[in-house]
């Protein structure tokens, strides 16, 4: 049977030599349709808009097609242009309207603007920020999301380029989506089941006045466009295919894919910044502006996206739906998400419509939504972010408490205990999946640097060490920076293991920073956003050099997987202990905490953490159900006895007492008694 040709597949007009007809308003963006491409763009304040067409790679436009008045519905201009080869064109828009910055309008017809809905961008090609039409057909082979329960995730935060860019990665396409695919066996071996990709929306990687490099990419310009320079096939404009292939392969390996998304600001800066897309298309709608038209700066980067404006809300929702539906993305981590709860003047909204829409959207229903629940203007909502029983949070208080406990601060043992069991002081209503626990993230020290530096060392960032956080809560273990002192190195090794073991024994969703499992360093730089170099890339030689650490992390992840009681459950399953069983010491001078998690059967785990510089003898609670204590991990022990293979833990000779070393964490597990 032959399909009937649609009756609107014929041009009705000719504009600038191109056959066209009135287009379809939806979907927004440029879409292949029979015989041509449908362009749809909206602006509530523009007086007219032209489509600017380029032959791919040519410096000057081949044509400009003003949208006729008859092709406009409301504020939406749409036009189908026939006889275009989507692979051979680039496009943009020229928008006319008032240039009245004091009223928020910044229309400027000298600029050709990128389509906010562009599915591809030329990226850092010689002609930047031009939009391209994507071929959206893809053979998903029945791909399905792993749909892992949120609390079962072990998240691994990585930078697509930095993960495989170093020659030591040994991949055939370094620094790309395809390169990441080649490292899936490594992720499987480590045991993580979720990757969180630092920003992959198109951004300007040269946008930085200090070093000329913006490596992290928290300055988006193309929210629908996977970053072209992260695709080995980007020069053939196949980044969409390469990205989808990456997701499909990760899913096949049982690994979910989260995207770190930035909707709090854009790469257009303030009044001094360039006009690349939203600013020229409808500045007054997209940005939060002061009454006299200046930019509010709640993000610390110059501008703030006006994300609870109804139009912007729609834009954000369209974008996330696109990634979830077209790219099979499993969830999103929202950068500076507290801003997403602010109104047009920056005021805090009690029922922010954007957050509510995302929480209840049917396309996003199964996506994980994770908020970085603070912003750069001092709003800190960890524990109080509007959650709709749906949102979880980067638990900044977990990070800070664990760091303070680790370095031996007094008075934090009680709070550490609260953090260990899923921070019920903040999340008891929502359960343990609401807290994403972490010690390190891209933002700040790596774990190795956390135990090697007391202070940040950011001179290479070009701001005289003024940038970056000043409250790292770190401890260098006796010497600042690199050293070959065996005593210092031994303490660092133990502190590293303490941190990882506590993280992975805590209720909530653990997140690891890529490379921490192998001792990656940034030489004390705690704000390395501006270095695209070996300083920030994963040196794969470390995996061999620090094979003992890698083996430890692998076993601890496997142990967590084997013990559901560490991931979720009721508070009654946890009992507290101290030097004496059943007698926890919550006084301010105490640096020892011990907990027994009992999930029934042999899912019973005893976790003791000692941040004091001397050891203790701990009286053990009797293991339940006549079982026997076995030793899973002891960070005071040398590798490979620092952690045993889960299921093959050796029994404790003395079932009533155990020694815990100085600054150590100990994990026991019950199994059947061997004499039975």
């Amino acid at each position, binding site marked *: 049977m032959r399909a009937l040709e649609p009756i609107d597949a014929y041009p009705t007009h000719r504009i600038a030599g191109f056959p066209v007809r009135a287009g379809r308003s939806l979907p927004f963006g440029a879409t292949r349709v029979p015989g041509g491409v449908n362009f749809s763009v909206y602006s509530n304040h523009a007086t007219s808009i032209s489509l600017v067409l380029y032959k791919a790679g040519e410096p000057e436009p081949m044509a400009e097609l003003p949208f006729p008045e008859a092709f406009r519905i409301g504020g939406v201009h749409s036009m189908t242009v026939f006889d275009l*080869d989507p*692979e051979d064109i680039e496009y943009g828009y020229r928008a006319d309207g008032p240039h009245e910055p004091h009223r928020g309008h910044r229309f400027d017809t000298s600029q050709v603007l990128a389509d906010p809905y562009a599915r591809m961008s030329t990226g850092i090609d010689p002609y930047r920020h031009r939009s391209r039409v994507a071929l959206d057909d893809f*053979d998903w082979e029945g791909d399905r999301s792993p749909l892992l329960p949120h609390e079962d995730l072990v998240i691994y935060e990585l930078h697509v380029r930095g993960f495989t860019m170093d020659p030591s990665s040994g991949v055939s396409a370094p620094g790309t989506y395809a390169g990441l695919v080649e490292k899936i066996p490594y992720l499987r071996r480590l045991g993580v089941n979720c990757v969180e990709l630092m920003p992959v929306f198109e951004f300007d990687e040269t946008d930085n006045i200090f070093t000329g490099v913006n490596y992290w990419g928290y300055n988006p310009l193309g929210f629908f466009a996977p970053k072209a320079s992260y695709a*080995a096939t980007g020069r053939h404009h*196949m980044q969409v*295919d*390469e990205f989808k292939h990456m997701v499909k392969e990760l899913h096949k390996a049982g690994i979910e894919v989260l995207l770190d998304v930035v909707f709090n600001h854009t790469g257009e800066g303030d009044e001094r910044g360039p006009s690349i897309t939203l600013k020229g298309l409808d500045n007054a709608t997209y940005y939060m502006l002061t009454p006299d038209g200046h930019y509010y700066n709640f993000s610390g980067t110059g501008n703030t996206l006006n994300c609870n404006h109804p139009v912007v809300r729609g834009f954000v929702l369209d974008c996330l739906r696109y990634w979830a539906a077209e790219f099979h993305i499993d969830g999103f981590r929202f950068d500076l998400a507290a801003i997403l709860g602010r109104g047009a003047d920056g005021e805090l909204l009690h029922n922010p419509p954007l957050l509510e829409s995302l929480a209840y959207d049917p396309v996003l229903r199964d996506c994980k939504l994770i908020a970085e629940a603070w912003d750069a203007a001092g709003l800190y909502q960890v524990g109080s972010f509007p959650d709709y029983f749906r949102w979880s949070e980067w638990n900044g208080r977990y990070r800070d408490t664990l760091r303070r406990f680790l370095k031996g601060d007094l008075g934090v043992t009680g709070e550490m205990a609260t953090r260990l069991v899923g921070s019920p002081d903040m999340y008891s209503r929502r359960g343990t999946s609401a807290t994403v626990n972490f010690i390190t993230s891209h933002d700040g020290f790596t774990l190795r640097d956390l135990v090697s530096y007391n202070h940040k060392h950011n001179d290479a960032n070009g701001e005289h060490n003024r940038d970056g956080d000043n409250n790292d809560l770190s401890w260098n273990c006796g010497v600042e920076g690199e050293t070959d002192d065996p005593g210092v190195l031994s303490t660092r090794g133990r502190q590293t293991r303490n941190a990882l073991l506590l993280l992975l024994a805590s209720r909530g969703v653990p997140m690891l920073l890529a490379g921490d499992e192998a001792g990656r360093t940034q030489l004390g730089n705690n704000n390395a956003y501006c270095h695209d170099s070996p300083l920030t890339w994963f040196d794969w030689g470390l995996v061999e050099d620090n094979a003992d650490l890698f083996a430890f992390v692998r076993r601890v992840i496997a142990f967590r997987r084997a013990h559901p009681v560490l991931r979720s459950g009721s508070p009654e399953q946890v009992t507290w202990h101290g030097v004496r069983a059943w007698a926890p010491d919550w006084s301010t001078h105490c640096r020892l905490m011990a907990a027994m998690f009992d999930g029934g059967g042999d899912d019973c785990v005893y976790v003791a953490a000692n941040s004091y510089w001397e050891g203790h003898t701990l009286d053990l609670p009797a293991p339940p159900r006549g079982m026997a204590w076995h030793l899973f991990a002891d960070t005071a022990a040398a590798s490979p006895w620092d952690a045993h293979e889960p299921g093959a833990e050796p029994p404790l000779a003395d079932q009533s007492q155990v020694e815990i070393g100085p600054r150590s964490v100990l994990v026991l597990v019950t199994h059947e008694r061997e004499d039975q």
Partner: protein
Amino acid sequence: MSFQVKMNVEGDTATIRLSGELDGRSAPELNQLVGEAVEQRVGKLVLLLDELTYMSSAGVRCLVFAHQKLPRGSEITLIGTQPEVAETIRLTGFDRSIVMT
């Protein structure tokens, strides 16, 4: 160089020789030949690519089209693929069901 395509069917093998540029404009021609091969119930499809100067992403999609049209278990072989094209096919995962030599 303009696109040219010729098909030869012998037994259960269809051999298609391509030359010039395979892109969005020329891809339908190849797809049509693949459709004809399917009607002749071939079990093997051999694409001779050594005279192909360029293959765009629309061209690469012809391979998926062929894979989906041919009966299950059919074999698609590419001969003479330019290294860069072969690399693109591999990195985007389109090599799943073809043999490149």
